[in-house]
């Protein structure tokens, strides 16, 4: 009986320590934000901006970056950059490709060639481009022409997805 009492007191201690560590994380969560910059050669869109989460179109797949992400450098392809802002607002940019750097100090640089808000894309142009590059891809003979057409096709597919045009 004595042993069981000791056990239960240990359990109690453990549960207390678990609770206290949980509380520690909860207080941290309020400023658990990523600092990021979204830059293109001709415009600084965001500089040292705080956000909850930034989702990026990596060349090897879409990935999200929150605070304390492991440092990495990733190539970006045409796609949507989605920003979950500090206040919970959602913002979407279409980027044409570039590079994202996650630094050891938990900040993140997103360097892209073109970055436009998604609602600046013209659905009609996207639809026309999609048809044109699908045709070019099907007609292309040599490897270079095929690759050039495929680059165009992929870019337009992503834009179609971004502005809600059915593929």
């Amino acid at each position, binding site marked *: 009986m004595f042993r069981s009492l000791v056990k239960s007191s240990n359990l109690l201690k453990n549960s207390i320590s678990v609770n206290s560590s949980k509380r520690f994380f909860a207080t941290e969560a309020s400023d658990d934000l990523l600092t990021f910059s979204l830059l293109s050669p001709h415009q600084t869109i965001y500089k040292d901006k705080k956000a909850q989460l930034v989702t990026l179109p990596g060349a090897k797949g879409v990935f999200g970056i929150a605070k304390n992400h492991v440092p990495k450098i990733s190539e970006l392809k*045409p796609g949507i950059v989605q920003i979950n802002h500090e206040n919970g607002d959602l913002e979407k940019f279409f980027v044409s*490709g570039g590079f994202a750097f996650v630094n050891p100090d938990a900040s993140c640089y997103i360097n892209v060639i073109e970055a*436009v808000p998604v609602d600046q894309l*013209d659905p009609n142009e996207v639809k026309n481009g999609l048809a044109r590059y699908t045709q070019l891809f099907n007609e292309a003979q040599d490897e*270079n022409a095929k690759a050039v057409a*495929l*680059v165009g096709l992929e*870019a*337009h597919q992503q834009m179609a997805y971004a502005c809600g045009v059915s593929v």
Partner: protein
Amino acid sequence: MAGQYWRAAGITYLQYANMCGSHVRNCLKEPFKAAAKVRENFVSNTVHYVNGKENQTIILNSELLQKELTTKKN
């Protein structure tokens, strides 16, 4: 095709990035598209001198580059 198929076809990263950028600029709504097109323009003249005399001039601008891109596409 997955990964960097364009690199296998002999396209460099700069060419790829420029192509993607120009596709996005082409698909913008009007006031933004005109602004983006203005930004895209550039002119460059390279003059080679031999013995103090103009020997060869290379003119490169965005229109010529566009032409080259379209011939490559076709």
